[in-house]
Every structure is written in structure tokens, then in C-alpha cells.
């Protein structure tokens, strides 16, 4: 028995010394929700980031001031709760002394953790927090996703310029901040580029409303050139079907709420020829996208969703910035992030003064039950 224990101990010590001896490490923290209501979001985000770091480590790690460092990714689960997120940020900063944090998923969680990171001078890149205030916390806070007002503007500009729509109708859920914000942003930018919103209809609570025929009949009489179905995929598919049944033939447009394989199953014929704005398209022919989709599918199985993509991009931005930072100084890393100009999966990313990305959105078309990459749009 003693012998066995001895062998085991020697093995452990041997392995430990091996990892320590092989390369220098740079610690990077990750925060996302792996439990709770949005658990799948957290899993996608962690997978995306880990893939980016693993790829870089296989190439020998990042190059800081002429020395190679392997990225040591320390992950914390915030359970989707702001308190846990604050604890996770605190632990990563005080105990693990990380050089940067990628997280968290939900805006409320990032908002809880960001002030701590800002005060300690640790750069943060949130992959998916879309609330405007997140990056307003301070100059160490960045994100790799675009904001809802931006999406509204993309849909408006695509409808006006590419679909030649001069009039538009909007139908949205007025009990949901996401759809409400999008509808307002769409209306504002569509009017500002010269279009006219001829119908602005709402409904209450997607979960309980299934009959949109009254609103759609109004839209039909207003005779718009395009209809913005501003809802998540199941309601959007229902609306599309009911609109076609009422004899409405104009094209539909939508935002990233449509992004689900279920959408075409539910909508069938009715959603064919619709266009929607998204963070990325797996059918985007650029090599970086195809490479990412292939690797992600190999490692985790299944096509990466938008969250995984944004997390992967956050990882790429950080790797690129570490390579350019030149020293292990958090302020230098922050400056390097700010100066980012990098081709990522979701487009070429640079940052504005707030730390929000300036990039283009992807417009997909629904064709033959699939999402086909259409074009990049930058309003």
C-alpha cells in the first residue's frame, strides 16, 4: 500500500514540475453562468473562449516582450446572479491576480463585476452584455458584441437601401425590453434615413398571444413595403404565417431573435425570403469563419451559436492585444485592447471611445429552410 502511495506521489510531483517547467503562464479569468436559467449561454461562451486560447497555446502561447507565455484560463461560474458575479470578479482579481477577465454573459452580472475590475485596473471584455451602461462603467471595460440600437439601425438601413423599402411596418412585443428597444431603434433610424413607418403595432407577452390577425390586418391596410417582425423565433414564425394567410406578400425582416433552427420548421413557406440581422453567419465564406466553425464542431459537436462566436472573438481580441502589449502591465494591455484592429469571426473589430466594438452586422436570408449569408451591413 505504501509503495502504491509513493508511486502516486512521485507521479504527481513529476507532472507538476513538468507543467511548471515547460513555459511561463499568464493568468486570464473567465466568468459566465453555467447554472441557472441561462445555463446554455454560459456553456457556449466558455467553449468559445477556451477554443481561442487552446488554439493559441498549441502555437506556443502569446508573445509578451519577446517571451512566450501560455494562457492559463481560470473559469468561474456566476450562476446568472449579480452577487455571484461580483464574488467571482473579486476572487479572480484578488486571489488569482489575473491580467484580464472575459465575462460575464448577462448585462446585470457584468454590471456587478465591472466596477470592481475598473477600480483594480483589470481589463474586462464582455462577449455578450448588450446593455448600454456596461461599457460606461469605465475605460477598462470592453465588449465584443454590438448593441440593440445598432441592430435596429442595421435592419432599417438594409430595408431602405437593399430592399428599396420606402415604407415599413413594425410589430413587436411591448412586454419585452429587447423587442421594445429594437422597435424604437428601427423606427428612429428608418425615419432618419428618409423612410416612413406606416404601422407600429404591438402585442403583449409572446407566451400568451398567438393571434396577431387584428394587428396584421391593420398592417395590411397600411400597405408597407416591408414588415419588421420584431420578436423571438416562435412568435415571428406565427406572425409570418398569419400574415401570408391574410394575403400580405411583402418581405419580412427581423433581428437576431430569429436565429434558431426551429424558425424555419415553424414558419415553413411563410418565412422563405425573409432577411434577418445577426452577429455572424456560419455560411460566411471568409477562411477565419470556416476554420472556426470546423474546429468548434470537431471539439464540441454542433454548429457554434452567436454566443460562442462572440466569446471566441473576445478571446481573439485579448490574444492579439497581449501580443501587442509588449509588457505584463495591465494598463498596457488595456491600451492595446483599445487600439485593436482585428479581423474576427463576427467581422473586423475596432473600438470606439466607450469600448464598444465598431463592426458590421451580418444579414442572412431564409432560403430553402436554411439561413444563407447575404451581406455585411454597416449603417
Amino acid at each position, binding site marked *: 500500500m505504501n509503495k502504491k502511495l509513493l508511486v502516486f506521489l512521485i507521479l504527481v510531483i513529476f507532472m507538476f514540475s513538468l507543467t511548471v517547467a515547460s513555459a511561463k503562464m499568464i493568468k486570464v479569468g473567465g466568468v459566465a453562468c453555467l447554472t441557472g436559467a441561462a445555463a446554455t449561454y454560459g456553456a457556449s461562451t466558455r467553449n468559445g473562449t477556451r477554443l481561442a486560447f487552446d488554439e493559441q497555446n498549441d502555437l506556443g502561447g502569446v508573445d509578451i516582450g519577446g517571451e512566450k507565455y501560455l494562457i492559463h484560463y481560470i473559469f468561474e461560474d456566476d450562476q446568472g446572479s449579480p452577487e455571484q458575479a461580483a464574488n467571482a470578479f473579486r476572487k479572480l482579481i484578488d486571489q488569482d491576480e489575473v491580467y484580464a477577465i472575459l465575462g460575464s454573459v448577462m448585462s446585470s452580472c457584468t454590471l456587478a463585476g465591472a466596477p470592481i475590475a475598473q477600480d483594480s485596473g483589470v481589463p474586462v471584455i464582455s462577449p455578450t452584455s448588450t446593455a448600454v451602461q456596461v461599457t460606461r462603467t469605465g475605460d477598462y471595460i470592453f465588449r465584443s458584441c454590438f448593441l440593440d440600437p445598432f441592430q435596429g439601425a442595421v435592419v432599417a438601413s438594409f430595408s431602405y437601401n437593399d430592399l428599396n423599402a420606402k415604407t415599413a411596418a413594425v410589430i413587436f412585443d411591448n412586454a419585452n425590453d429587447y423587442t421594445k428597444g429594437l422597435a424604437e431603434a428601427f423606427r428612429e433610424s428608418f425615419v432618419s434615413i428618409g423612410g416612413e413607418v406606416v404601422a407600429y403595432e*404591438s*402585442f403583449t407577452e409572446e407566451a400568451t398571444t398567438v393571434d396577431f*390577425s*387584428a394587428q396584421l390586418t391593420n398592417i395590411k391596410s397600411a400597405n408597407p413595403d416591408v414588415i419588421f417582425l420584431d420578436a423571438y423565433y416562435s412568435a415571428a414564425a*406565427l406572425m409570418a404565417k398569419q400574415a401570408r*394567410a391574410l*394575403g400580405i406578400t411583402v418581405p419580412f425582416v427581423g433581428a437576431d431573435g430569429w436565429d434558431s433552427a426551429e424558425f424555419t420548421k415553424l414558419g415553413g413557406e411563410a418565412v422563405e425570403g425573409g432577411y434577418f440581422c445577426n452577429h455572424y453567419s456560419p455560411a460566411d465564406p471568409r477562411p477565419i469563419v470556416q476554420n472556426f466553425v470546423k474546429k468548434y464542431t470537431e471539439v464540441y459537436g454542433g454548429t457554434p451559436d452567436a454566443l460562442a462566436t462572440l466569446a471566441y472573438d473576445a478571446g481573439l481580441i485579448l490574444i492579439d492585444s497581449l501580443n501587442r502589449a509588449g509588457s505584463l502591465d495591465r494598463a498596457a494591455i488595456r491600451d492595446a485592447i483599445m487600439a485593436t484592429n482585428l479581423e474576427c469571426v463576427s467581422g473586423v473589430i475596432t473600438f470606439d471611445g466607450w469600448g464598444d466594438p465598431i463592426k458590421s452586422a451580418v444579414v442572412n436570408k431564409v432560403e430553402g429552410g436554411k439561413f444563407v449569408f447575404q451581406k455585411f451591413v454597416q449603417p
Partner: protein
Amino acid sequence: MTKKQISSSVNKKMLAYDKLPNWKKYAFISAITLFFLALYISFFGIQAFFQQLVNGIQLGSIYALIALGYTMIYGIIRLINFAHGDLFMFGAYISCFLGNYLMAHNFRYPFIVVLIFSMVVTALLGMAIEKIAYKPLRFKPRLAALITALGVSLFLENFFALSPQNVPFPLNKIVFGPKYILFPALIAEKTYNIGGIAINNIKILIVIITIILMIALQYIVKKTMIGKAMRAVAFNKDACLMMGINIDKVISITFGIGISLAAASGTLYALTYGQLQSPYLGIWPGLKAFIAAVLGGIGNIPGAMLGSYVMGVSETFATSINSNFGYGIAFVILIVVLVFKPAGLLGKFTKEKV
């Protein structure tokens, strides 16, 4: 004015309305309706008006089938069966599963088979619920049965919403799960354009089936032996017992018929919208159908039909005028009607002896 004075003045107004001869009442109601119609048409155009009318009638038909069951059960045993909306949901799910099976095996007329099967299975479940949950409370205070009905309703919703992965073997074959599912296209949808008004075959079918079922129900209640027994039980249970009427059987059959109508409505609902969101989907249609039944005069079968169509049409028009209004309007109409006619549109007000 004090509270008493206000209530007495309201009473006086109601009495004044009640005292009007019938033709004046109808003239009053038609004048108001015509006024709103003219206003609507002048704003939205005649075409939109007829389109919304069609939409409203379709919605009303779905409410009507649920409301008929509510009203029948209330009429016979004075029980508001709050589980009605959930049996509606059950009917929709059953027809979804059978529909998928039949579609996969290229059955020729899947819709009729699905409709009848779902009505029968749901009626059996309803009768079982009656035996287990309501029968033991039949001669107990009415509040007990009402609370039990609420309990049954909550149980059905939450039981069927369990995820199959989270429950042990025999149950995981029964529960539906909380996620929405697609409903098979049992009938290929065809849209007809009649003078700019779009009507599809499913909408026409729904209205036709609703009317057939209503006539059948009216026939059963008015012309058959069992219908006579139902009316007798509704009139006086104790006397029925003495006359040798098997009231258990009569009540059971009443439940079966009422609930099979809810199941039919569930099937038509699923066919119209093509998806089942979750086992909670019966709550709102059930609630609105209940309001429709009260509006028409609960316990009164033609009243339930009338109330449902009034509800469906007014909800559609209210939504079209301002899309935020739709849900609230049901309750506003209910309050207004009940202020003027406390027994509902076609109900007779009978003072309860205490």
C-alpha cells in the same frame, strides 16, 4: 354623495333600463353598435372592417366551444370547472400526437380521426376527474368544489409541464414537457381572396365545425332522453333522486360532453396556430371563454355562443384600434354588461334563496 346614494342611483338606472320595452332595448343597443361601426369604417375602410370581422368570428368560434362546456357544467351542477382550459390544452396535445402518427403513416383523412379521438380521450379524462375530484364534494358547500377545481387546473398544468427527462419511467411517457411543439399540418392551408378579404379554408372549417357541434349540443339537450334528464338534474337534484334518475350517470355524461367540446376547440386552436407553446396554453383561452360564458349568462347555452362571438369580435376590433387594448377589453365589456344586466346577456336573474 355617500356610497349608499351612489349605489341606489346605479340601481335606479338599471331599473330604468330594465323597465324599457324590449324593442327599445334592442334599438338602444343597435344604435350604439352602429355608431361604433360607422366610426370604425370611416377610419379604417370597409375592407379592413370585414377582414377584422372574419378574424373576430374565428376567434369567437374557438371561445364558443370552450364556453359551451363551461356553461353546461355550471348549468347542471352549479360548478365552475376551472380545469376546463387545461382539458382544452390536453385535447390539443392529444390531437398533436395522434396527428403526427397518422401523418407519418399517410392516413387519408387525418383531421376527422384526430378530432374525434381527441374528443373521446379528453372526455374520458374529464369524467375521471369528475369522479375523483368533484363527486365526493357534490353535497358539500359549493366553495369546496370550486377550490378543488382550481387545484385540478393547477395540477394538470404543472404535471404536464414536467420534462420527461426529469421524471421516472411510467410518468415520462405521459408528460408533455414545458417546451413548445409543432402541430402537424393536418389540412393543407388554402387562402381565398373574396373582394380583398382573405379567408382560408381552416377558418371556414372552424366556423362550420363550431356550428355543427352547437346544433348537435342543442339537439341533445332539448330533444333526447338524456338531455331531459340533464335538465331535470339542473332543476332539482333531490327530486331527481326520488324519481329514480341516476344523477351520477347524468352528471358524468354532462361532463363528458362539455369536455369533449373543449377538446374539439383545442384541436381547432392547434390547427389554426400550428404550434403548442406549453401546457400552460389553456389558461388564457379558458379564462376568456369563462368571461364569454358569464357575459352570455352562465348556464345558458345560446348565451355562451353569443357571449363568445361578442368577445371574439370586440377583442379583435379593440386590438386593431390600439394594439395594447386587446387583452383588457374583455374585462371592460364584462364589467359594462354586468352593470346593466347582472345575469348576462341572455341569462335570467333568479334570486337565490338563503
